[in-house]
């Protein structure tokens, strides 16, 4: 088990190196310097700025410097937010995004697994059809359509929930649903499929024949195998939730990393864009490793090599 984890971690190193190298060259080879848009800067000030960001050094030297700083987990200064490093910004904004993502994931899993399980226990009934119809609608409704519609209905028309912001508990509800809905839909479909497959297995009949209560049959015996497809989907789902947070943070005016990323992209703040993308890539790679480990724990037939 430990070997399996180590192997996955070591396997991630070359990937990280490639991403970091690409990151560096994209920052340095960007058409036009990062400060070209700040017109009318006197040449000596320009020189000072370049020296400050080491842009006057030869490329190989810059590369080693960047790599060394990455090893220290230092993503460098932001080109646009004066006196703030990318690390500062991530440290300030990421917890907000992480909280949002967590709520969204919880919503997706609770609703998705719940609806999928109910549908699989009553296949072909109205419960199944309505759950799966909703899931199909969910899969085809992008978060930037769902979000505004939810705001329109629950905030503007009914007045139940706040329109935007990130202060109290009520502010979490609509963003989490908006971000999680599509994954709830996917999870529901996967759960239904997985559970239907498992529920017709002989060992479920054995469990019933033992006299286990139906809840035990489902939780102890069916979920283990029935939720494996859902667990496999968690990797893409986490990546998708991270991506989706760009839009959701914009719609609901949430001070998370996604909003900073989009703002930096619009501002051409190269270090910020690349640093954040690198951070997201690392995050998602590690999440995928975690998901693989969870999968291996659930299915004893998976060998660790």
């Amino acid at each position: 088990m430990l070997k399996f984890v180590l192997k996955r971690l070591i396997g991630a190193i070359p990937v990280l190196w490639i991403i970091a190298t690409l990151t560096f060259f994209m920052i340095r080879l960007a058409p036009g310097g990062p400060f070209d848009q700040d017109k009318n800067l006197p040449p000596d000030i320009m020189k000072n700025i370049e020296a400050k960001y080491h842009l006057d050094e030869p490329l190989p030297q810059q590369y080693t410097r960047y790599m060394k700083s990455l090893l220290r987990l230092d993503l460098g200064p932001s080109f646009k937010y004066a006196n703030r490093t990318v690390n500062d910004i991530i440290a300030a904004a990421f917890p907000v995004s992480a909280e949002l993502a967590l709520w969204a994931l919880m919503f997706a899993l609770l609703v998705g697994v719940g609806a999928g399980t109910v549908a699989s226990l009553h296949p072909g009934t109205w419960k199944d059809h309505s759950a799966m119809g909703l899931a199909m609608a969910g899969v085809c409704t992008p978060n930037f359509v769902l979000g505004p519609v939810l705001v329109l209905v629950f905030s503007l028309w009914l007045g139940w929930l706040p329109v935007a912001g990130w202060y109290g508990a009520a502010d979490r509800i609509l963003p989490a649903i908006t971000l999680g809905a599509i994954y709830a839909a996917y999870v529901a479909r996967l759960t239904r499929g997985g559970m239907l497959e498992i529920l017709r297995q002989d060992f479920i009949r054995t469990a019933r024949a033992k006299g286990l209560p139906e809840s035990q049959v489902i939780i102890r015996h069916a979920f283990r195998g029935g939720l494996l497809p859902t667990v496999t989907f968690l990797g893409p789902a986490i990546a998708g939730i991270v991506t989706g947070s760009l839009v959701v943070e914009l719609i609901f005016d949430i001070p998370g990393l996604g909003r900073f990323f989009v703002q930096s992209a619009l501002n051409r703040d190269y270090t910020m864009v690349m640093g954040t993308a690198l951070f997201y890539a690392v995050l998602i790679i590690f999440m995928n490793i975690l998901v693989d480990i969870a999968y291996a724990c659930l299915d004893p037939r998976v060998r660790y090599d």
Partner: protein
Amino acid sequence: MALLEVEDLKVHFHTRHGVVKAVDGVSFSLNQGDVLGIVGESGSGKSVACLSLLGLVPSPPARVAGRALLNGQDLLGLDGDRLRQIRGRKISVIFQEPMTSLNPYLKIGAQLMEVLTTHERIPAADARSRSEAMLGRVGIPDPGIRMDQYPHQFSGGMRQRVMIAMALLAKPDVLVADEPTTALDVTIQAQILELIRDLQRELGMAVILISHAMGVVAEMSAQILVMYAGRIVERGAPADLFRKPLHPYTRALMDSMPAPTDGGSAAERQGCRERPVAGRRKRLAAIPGTPPDPANLPAGCPFAPRCPYVLDICRKTDPEERPAPENSGRTFRCHVDI
């Protein structure tokens, strides 16, 4: 009073293509410590009959009617919760497929222990030691280590032993063994049957042994029910059945066995080791035709289209169950005296 008294059991599936009468008016009784054999082709309703007693036949689409008294208590009238307390504790089941009947995602020990923790509310440590002891009793070496392994680490025969251990943990009054040896190698089959017989004597429980192979059933049972198309066509002691089958279907089953036995119990036991597999292979060829479509039974006797002794009356009227002329306790369901 009998331990289990089944009266006029009917299991009908209401499907789009009509009503499938999987079990149609089956009655039998089982005394404490008895072994009852049920024989018939696949689809004859023998498994459905037994599983329906425990509520293990999905309903709907199935509709179960009749009475099934276990110690005087009607199982068919019980609600889900009460019936659950019967399953695994009063009546246990061993299934045909040991390879798929154990949960691949749970350790063997956990699957054994949950029988005890569900039915007896005993501490986990006690459940573990009893499970381990039972694993040892069914002939699994190193039970302490085996408890923490997963089903894929066991062979087919070993898994069937685990199934037996699981079924017997709560010391049930009745064990339903549904084709317990069909999926196993010939050599293992004999071992498993022997194990079931030994444990049956040791624990004094009643066993319902279901098989399509006459040899398997004949060796162990005090009484045999022959089922065809959802009803019992003949019942009697194995020795009587072998000496003189009264129903043409029973005779066909006998004829399809490799070496006819004359009823000696030692000879039976010997024969049994080869018979199940060989008998299965030849039987299909030996009985002409196929079992009738249960959704569309012919008028009259359902065996008539395949029966070598068929009379005109057979195609018109379904025969009633009647006692055998010479022997009290034997019955059969045929117009013809063969």
